């Protein structure tokens, strides 16, 4: 199936939808179709139900994090300096807002074709990380969208049961984001590399600085200070 024809078919079926072909330079040749959030559900229903398409199996749903970039470039400007126009070099930083992208891989069980790759992007990575849920169209997205909500922080509007899937409910961050910083208070396990040890010790000393002395004493004895120093001696 040609992605171009699918695109034109969809555009005819769902008036007003904005579709964009995203080329994939890899030898796999799996090009994708970026759809806009407003018409996503309508496009999805059309993909599922249109007799020529019948993409009835939504196989894989996943998120991708594209963090915002800060690029600094030197720009030459003409400026009035001391009354004369001079060419001045200036550093200018441009910040591109990041986005979270959700990718759907669709196949057709009836027609045995596929995959077609759908992409949707959020406006940013924080407050507006909302996308329409396609779970009402393909039930298979249910757990996978929950997983994306959990690990990436995309809020799917219209999802029937949007809870964290893998992390516990009290957890605050989204571990699959690229700027996620792992915790430094996990149970210490000596490895050949001292990075973990360094961070565990740092965590302890930070905790010591924060807490009143008695509490720290208890905490340190609990976390087995001996073992830490033993590992450090290596």
């Amino acid at each position: 199936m040609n992605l171009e024809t699918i695109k034109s078919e969809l555009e005819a079926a769902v008036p007003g939808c904005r579709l964009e072909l995203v080329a994939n330079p890899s030898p796999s040749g799996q090009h994708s179709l970026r759809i806009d959030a407003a018409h996503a559900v309508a496009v999805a229903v059309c993909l599922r139900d249109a007799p020529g398409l019948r993409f009835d199996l939504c196989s894989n749903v996943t998120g991708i994090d594209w963090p915002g970039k800060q690029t600094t470039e030197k720009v030459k400007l003409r400026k009035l300096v001391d009354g004369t126009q001079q060419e001045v070099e200036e550093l200018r930083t441009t910040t591109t807002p990041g986005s979270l992208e959700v990718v759907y891989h669709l196949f057709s069980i009836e027609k045995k074709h596929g995959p077609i790759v759908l992409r949707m992007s959020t406006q940013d990575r924080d407050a507006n990380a909302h996308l329409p849920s396609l779970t009402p169209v393909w039930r298979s997205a249910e757990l996978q969208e929950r997983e994306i909500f959990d690990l990436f922080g995309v809020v799917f509007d219209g999802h029937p049961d949007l809870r964290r899937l893998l992390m516990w409910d009290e957890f605050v961050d989204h571990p699959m984001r690229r700027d996620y910083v792992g915790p430094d208070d996990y149970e210490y396990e000596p490895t050949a590399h001292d990075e973990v040890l360094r961070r565990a010790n740092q965590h302890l000393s930070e905790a010591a600085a924060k807490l009143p002395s008695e509490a720290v004493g208890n905490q340190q004895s609990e976390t087995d200070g001996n073992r830490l120093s033993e590992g450090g001696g290596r």
Partner: protein
Amino acid sequence: MVGEGILKGLVETARNFFGSYVGKDRLTTVQYPEERLPQIEAARSFPFLVYDGPDWDKGMRCVACQICEKECPPKCILIKKSADKKPDAVGKPQFYPAVFNIDISVCMSCQICVEVCPFDAIKMDVDYDLSTDDRFGDLLLDKERLAKSNEYYNAIHPTEAAAVDAHFAEERAKAEAKAKAATEAKAAAEAKVAPAAQEQPVGGETQ
């Protein structure tokens, strides 16, 4: 008839009951400490470092290139490069590891260190009786405990080791030929100067 399937099942279990006294193919259990399965050549447990010759420290093939340290997926290898150099298996002066630690409580026996090693210095052991009562000390293997002789390597992985040895012999022959050519050229150029003594390669095969 009701109960036919149940009776069939009962007959089947009875057959297995008696079969387990007759055939070894039904009773596959190996009574571990007393009997053991034959050693499989491809088996792998944890890595060890190969050395040539009698002295483990001198003959170690490892040149501390740290490739395995970088490629190790769970990052269980720690290598510190030496300051000085010493001749390697082929005879070239090379660095050697001042520290080489493998934490086998972290190692997952994936064999990637073996595959990436260009010097055939690290290989997989087949020993599996590794339980110990000191989780932290005994499972962190240092250079001395990691070092195993080339003879041992030949014993546990004969086919693979033979190929490695052949490769080394070839390399050494090439190096010797090169050295010989160099010395001959040198001798031809400066007939007065005595050819410099070439250092003998340290190799298990030569002894």
